[in-house]
C-alpha cells in the first residue's frame, strides 16, 4: 500500500539525528468506525476497547484508539477486513487513509513544542492518551506513548495534508 507522502512524490520517509526519529508509518492497515453502535460492533469482533475517552489500548498487536466518545480508529494487521462486514444500527464505518508519522526520541518534545499547543511533557505516556488538536495548522490525532523509556508520538492526519505535515516536521527537526 502506498503512503500519502507519494501524493507529492516524497521518497525519503525517514529522518534521524541525535535523539530524534521522524518516520512515515502510513502504510499500516487501518479501520475506522463511529456512532452509538460502534462499540457493539467492535465487541462483537472481540476487540478490547479503551475505557476512557481519548485514550488507546493495545490488543494483540493492534492499536485500538478511542477518539472522543464514540469513534474508534484501529491500526494493525488484519483490521481492514472489518470494512466488508455487516454493521449493526448506528455504526457508521469511516474509510481511514490517514497519513501517520512516528516521532520518537528525547528530542521530540522540542518539535512538538514548536508545532502544537499541548504540554506533552506533563502528560502521562503510560496511559496512552490521545489528543485531537491542531498542529502547524492541520487537524491531527496524536497518540502519546513510550518505548523503552523514550517518548513516542504517532500523529494521524488527513492524507491530503500528509506531505505538508511531514515536510514541516522535517524542517523543524532539521533546525534543532
Amino acid at each position, binding site marked *: 500500500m502506498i503512503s500519502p507522502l507519494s501524493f507529492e512524490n516524497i521518497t525519503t520517509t525517514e529522518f534521524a539525528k541525535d535523539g530524534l526519529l521522524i518516520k512515515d508509518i502510513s502504510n499500516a492497515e487501518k479501520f475506522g468506525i463511529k456512532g452509538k453502535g460502534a462499540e457493539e460492533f467492535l465487541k462483537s469482533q472481540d476487540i478490547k476497547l479503551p475505557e476512557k*475517552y*481519548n485514550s488507546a489500548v493495545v490488543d494483540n498487536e493492534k492499536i485500538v484508539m478511542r*477518539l472522543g*466518545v464514540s469513534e474508534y480508529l484501529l491500526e494493525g494487521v488484519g483490521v481492514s477486513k472489518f470494512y466488508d462486514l455487516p454493521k449493526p444500527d448506528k455504526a457508521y464505518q469511516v474509510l481511514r487513509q490517514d497519513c501517520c508519522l512516528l516521532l520518537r526520541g528525547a528530542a521530540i518534545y522540542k518539535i512538538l513544542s514548536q508545532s502544537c*499547543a499541548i504540554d506533552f511533557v506533563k502528560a502521562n505516556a503510560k496511559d496512552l492518551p490521545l489528543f*485531537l*488538536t*491542531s498542529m502547524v495548522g492541520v*487537524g491531527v*490525532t496524536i497518540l502519546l506513548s513510550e518505548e523503552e523509556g523514550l517518548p513516542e508520538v504517532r500523529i494521524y492526519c488527513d492524507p491530503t495534508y500528509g506531505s505538508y505535515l511531514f515536510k514541516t516536521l522535517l524542517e523543524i527537526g532539521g533546525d534543532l
Partner: protein
Amino acid sequence: MKIMTCPINGERPISEFYYWGAIKTPPNPDICSDEEWSDYVFNKNGAPGIKKEFWCHSPSNTWFVAERDTLTDTILKTYLYDGGAK
C-alpha cells in the same frame, strides 16, 4: 490566547474552535408571523451579558454549548448539548 474547555477534549486554545452563535429558540414557523420570523432570523442581542452559544471544537468536530459572560469576557461553563427544541 483565550482558553476554551471542550467538554470532551479539555482545555484548548480558542483558535481550535468555531463559534456558531447564540442559541435561539425559533418561533413555530407554521404559525408565527413574517415579522416574528424575520426578527428571529436577523436580530441578535448584542447587549453584554451571559450568552448561551453553540461552539465546535474543529479538530474533533465536537459540538457543545458554552455559557459566556460577554461583559467580563469570561467563559462560565461548557457542556454537551442535552437536547431541546429543533
